[in-house]
């Protein structure tokens, strides 16, 4: 009997690695329902509306996918930086920089779509990469801690871009009261996958990128170098890895991904422009998605999908159950906590597993200056 049970272990492990997150979500929903009840609403109505808003019909599914797309790409960017031992908290600014770059190329260049779209995407990538490379360079050259510099570059990017879409700014759409840019030319807009819907090809790009980043990190020399620098800088130096170059490169790739996310948002969502209040908060969301996904590209896809579904379903939850949208933030916090500290879940539901230390990644390796 014992032999049989032992043979079942791998299946048991997969089963548990799926069950535990599901139970984590379930527990978070139960806890949040206490808050909902105390404020006089019906939690069951709220959650059903949330689910229907995310998955109820084709259009809702599409909105979920549209919300998931930038979270995947941004999450990949943050995760990759963490793998390299770097804290890229500057994703918010890098997304905006990518958006603006795509607006500039998308509104001024005249070319057929087959050229215009890749160029506009590339503009977003380059802009984000350059913006992230600045903190990378400051860290490599001056030892400036990237937490400080990325926070600072966030504010700098956001405020300069805000100025640029004001009445005195260069990018302002003059035929509008609203602080916004001109809309992208038709040739720069992402093609729609299902006609008469809003589903653009961004999700395809995002999923391909997830595979690309996975291969990059775990199957290429560059990826090994990045991860070595992230795990142990001294060892990396001994191996002959050019650490400084690596730091800048990692930040650049990370920022490039963020910039691409920003470009896709502008190129995919009507009215195909950038305006005040566009994509606010995606930087922090990308961080949450990345850590929930255990900074693994495949995990990032799943956690982005979860967050995207919740963000998308929130509309119907507000509409039907009159539960304030902040409930989604509470849920996301609780889910993150229960998934990360799955010992709590396992304790509550009495699930025993062997603690697999191998997959436990340390995000804060690079915090204290790097040499270990």
């Amino acid at each position: 009997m014992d032999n049989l049970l032992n043979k079942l272990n791998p299946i048991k492990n997969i089963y548990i690695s799926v069950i535990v997150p599901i139970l984590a979500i379930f527990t978070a929903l139960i806890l949040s329902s206490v808050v909902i009840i105390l404020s006089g609403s019906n939690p069951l109505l709220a959650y059903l509306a949330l689910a229907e808003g995310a998955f109820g019909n084709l259009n809702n599914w599409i909105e979920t996918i549209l919300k998931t797309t930038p979270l995947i790409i941004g999450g990949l960017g943050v995760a990759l930086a963490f793998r390299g031992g770097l804290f890229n908290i500057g994703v918010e600014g890098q997304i905006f920089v990518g958006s603006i770059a795509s607006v500039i190329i998308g509104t001024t260049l005249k070319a057929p779509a087959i050229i215009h779209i890749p160029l506009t995407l590339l503009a977003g990538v380059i802009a984000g990469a350059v913006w992230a490379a600045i903190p990378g360079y400051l860290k490599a050259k001056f030892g400036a801690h990237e937490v400080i510099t990325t926070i600072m570059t966030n504010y700098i990017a956001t405020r300069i871009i805000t100025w640029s879409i004001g009445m005195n700014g260069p990018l302002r759409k003059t035929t509008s009261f609203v602080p916004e840019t001109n809309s992208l030319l038709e040739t720069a807009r992402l093609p729609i996958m299902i006609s008469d819907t809003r589903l653009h090809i961004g999700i395809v790009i995002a999923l391909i990128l997830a595979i690309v980043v996975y291969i990059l990190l775990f199957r290429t020399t560059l990826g090994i170098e990045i991860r070595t620098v992230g795990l142990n800088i001294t060892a990396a130096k001994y191996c002959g890895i050019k650490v400084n170059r690596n730091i800048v490169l990692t930040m650049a790739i990370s920022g490039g991904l963020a910039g691409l996310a920003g470009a896709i948002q502008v190129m995919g969502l009507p009215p195909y422009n950038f305006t005040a209040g566009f994509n606010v908060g995606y930087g922090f969301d990308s961080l949450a998605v990345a850590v929930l996904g255990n900074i693994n590209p495949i995990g990032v896809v799943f956690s982005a999908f979860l967050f995207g579904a919740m963000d998308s379903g929130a509309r119907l939850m507000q509409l039907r159950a009159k539960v304030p949208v902040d409930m989604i933030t509470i849920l996301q916090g609780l889910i993150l906590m229960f998934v990360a500290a799955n010992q709590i879940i396992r304790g509550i539901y009495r699930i025993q597993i062997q603690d697999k230390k191998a997959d436990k990644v340390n995000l804060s390796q690079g915090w204290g200056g790097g040499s270990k």
Partner: protein
Amino acid sequence: MKRNLTKLMVLLAILSILLTACQPKVSETEQPVQNETSTTKVEEKEECSYKIGYVSDVGKINDQSFNQASWTGVEEAAKLLGLGKECYSFIETTDSADYEINIRSFVDEGYNIIVTSGFAMGAITRQIAKENPELFFIGVGQEQVNENFEPDPYPNAVGLNFREDFGGFLVGALAGLMTETNVVGGVFGCQFIPPVARYEVGYYNGVKFVNPDAKVINVYHPGSIDVCFSDATFGSETAKALVSEGADVLYGAGGLTANGALITACNQGAYVLGTDMDQFVTLPEVKDCILSSALKDIQEGVVGVIGSIADGSFGGGDVYAPSSLAPFHNLDSAIPEDAKVLLEEIAEKLYSGEINPCTPFEGSNPNTFCVPIK
């Protein structure tokens, strides 16, 4: 291990029972016509002669001024029409990319009166209004114009507009009359938001109209849309600086940021002036310092337009709600009679077109987009 699985089974069973118990609610919305009187809940839903939806702008619905006033108007209108709580609802926008789907959610759910709040939603509201001529749309702060800024009304869409510059001018005049140090201050939200710009320019002009020697120090929050209306601490710190500079009257127009400024200025002994709603009511901390507020009558406007839908007098196009000063409340006796008379005269001259409250001055905010009185 058996124990764990059993527990799991029990949990899943409970979950599925709960889900099935709620099936009727889910399928209800997919079948709009239900003639059976099976449950009272179904009947209540059918009684909604109007379903009113409200989409707020990026910001907070209970921000004690702009967004709040519109929502309060919806609630009041619903009460007047005898609509139950399930007949009106809101969606709070957290990302300007969501404007379209938020509005469309109400359309898909069968709402026939949709109120959208904020100038940024003007274009998309009009587009959806054009696609759904049988539904009614109320755009708070949205002018019904086309790309060349020419009037272009749709029969099913009303733009409920306000002359913030008038309101700003009136509070500015009041400030100019009440200051004893001849220094007045103002704390504002984002400078690229036209209503805020109109308030500021109107305020400046109003002070200068009654008191040309007064110094007017207006400070905007330098940040982006995600902080400029929700940084109460910045507002408070700025108010301290303004009062140190000698300001004895302070005006705030910028959501939560301005609220911080108003409370601090009040604590430091200055008079304050509020915005959008009567902040004597919504911000009790300042009730002994607040001279008045630049009222936008958003609430009354929303109630009025929804009422016109109900009694059939609704007509599309732009409506300009009156701007006025809130009652003086506790400080009524502190304001001299001739000041009150002058304020009334100014209000008349604003509406007759004799005074232009939006006159640009050196370095003034170009984001105003004022609409002149015809």
